């Protein structure tokens, strides 16, 4: 990467990079394949949580039973990237680095409180996933830096997460809005919450106000309504062929309510 002098690109699954190269959108000076680096291509259980190599394919993530039990929302988000045959190659790390505001892995990983382990010429550092994106197609990674792994924290009893997206088709589409929710309960009271929203701003959003509305509540209708209102207030979407500003904003609140219900249901049985 250093020899390429800024023109190098990392190749994980290649499902974005090769298509962009074929379309003439990018012309890297060098391509560095990371799929032979063991720590980037394995999932390990660590400190009660999971460390997922950034280049692990979506298919392998989907087949990891304990990961799917602990973090079903993250796994369902990663398994919405492309089609089955794309998931055989595509990785969560690549999906994050492509930095589409509508990428499915983003909101679920933000809700999960995922930390990224980043390696660069100056050594290693950790970065909360919500700080990765700088804008559409742009990350805060320094030249020469790459994501090595994605760390998901331990799951206490009575916790659950969920990811939902709205698309006009049933499969193989780009989110009009995506929403990830992660909750933990003591008894019936929600003790911690994180909400991630995708495709409603230049970057994936961590919606702190929506989480605050849920924490301390028993997910009564008015708490859900306040959290949905916080999601709508956080939206700064664009108008495009997939959805208007008004539609995206409205749907952000709808998905918050639905994803919260699924996450709470999972927490009850976890």
């Amino acid at each position: 990467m250093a020899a390429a002098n800024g023109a190098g690109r990392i190749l994980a699954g290649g499902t974005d990079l090769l298509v962009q190269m074929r379309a003439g959108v990018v012309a890297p000076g060098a391509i560095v394949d990371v799929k032979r680096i063991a720590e980037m291509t394995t999932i390990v259980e660590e400190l009660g949580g999971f460390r997922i190599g950034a280049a692990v394919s979506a298919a392998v993530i989907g087949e990891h039973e304990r990961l799917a039990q602990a973090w079903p929302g993250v796994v369902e988000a990663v398994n919405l990237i492309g089609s089955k045959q794309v998931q055989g190659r595509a990785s969560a790390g690549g999906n994050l680095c492509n930095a589409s505001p509508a990428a499915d892995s983003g909101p679920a990983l933000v809700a999960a409180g995922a930390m990224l382990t980043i390696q660069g010429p100056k050594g290693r550092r950790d970065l909360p996933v919500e700080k990765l994106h700088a804008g559409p197609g742009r990350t805060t990674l320094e030249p020469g830096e790459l994501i090595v792994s994605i760390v998901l924290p331990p799951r206490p009893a009575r916790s659950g997460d969920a990811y939902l997206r709205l698309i006009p088709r049933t499969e193989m589409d780009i989110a009009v809005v995506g929403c990830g929710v992660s909750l933990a309960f003591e008894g019936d009271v929600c003790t911690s919450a994180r909400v991630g929203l995708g495709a409603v701003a230049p970057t994936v959003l961590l919606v702190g106000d929506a989480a605050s509305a849920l924490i301390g509540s028993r997910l009564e209708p008015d708490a859900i309504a306040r959290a949905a209102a916080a999601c709508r207030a956080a939206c700064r979407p664009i108008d495009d062929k997939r959805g208007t500003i008004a539609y995206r904003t409205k749907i952000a609140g709808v998905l918050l309510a639905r994803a919260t219900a699924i996450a709470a249901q999972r927490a009850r049985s976890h």
Partner: protein
Amino acid sequence: MPQVSMTVNGRPIKADVEGRTLLVQLLREKLGLTGTHVGCDTSQCGACVVHVDGKSAKSCTLLAAQLDGANITTIEGLAGADGKLHPMQEAFRDNHGLQCGFCTPGMVMSAVDLAKTNPNASEHEIREWLEGNICRCTGYHNIVKSIQAGAAAMQAAK
């Protein structure tokens, strides 16, 4: 020019490839395995699906140089050495699961991966699995029927 070694349909091969050579180009142009088709060239249509280390993948979006040491199966690798069709191929023939046939290699390779991953897939699960395989002739109905029959035949043959 990098040299790659891989196993293609059970046969070890070595080839010199350019850095930019795609797996599908290596298969079709160097190895003469033209059963794998190129449709859209942008990983949408699924005509180029092959198995890489047992998982279905789109060979138009893989660099050959990436796959040193990999085990590749193409549509040519499914039938027996005696020419006897794979149960999934039989099922596509019996159920009229193709018309022009262009998408068929990718359809069959995806279907075999599905049948291994989820041997009792429902009609709904089959249709979902085919999200990355586009057919412009059949309307998918007979493809789904073929896959149901092929998956059952694969289980029976175990």
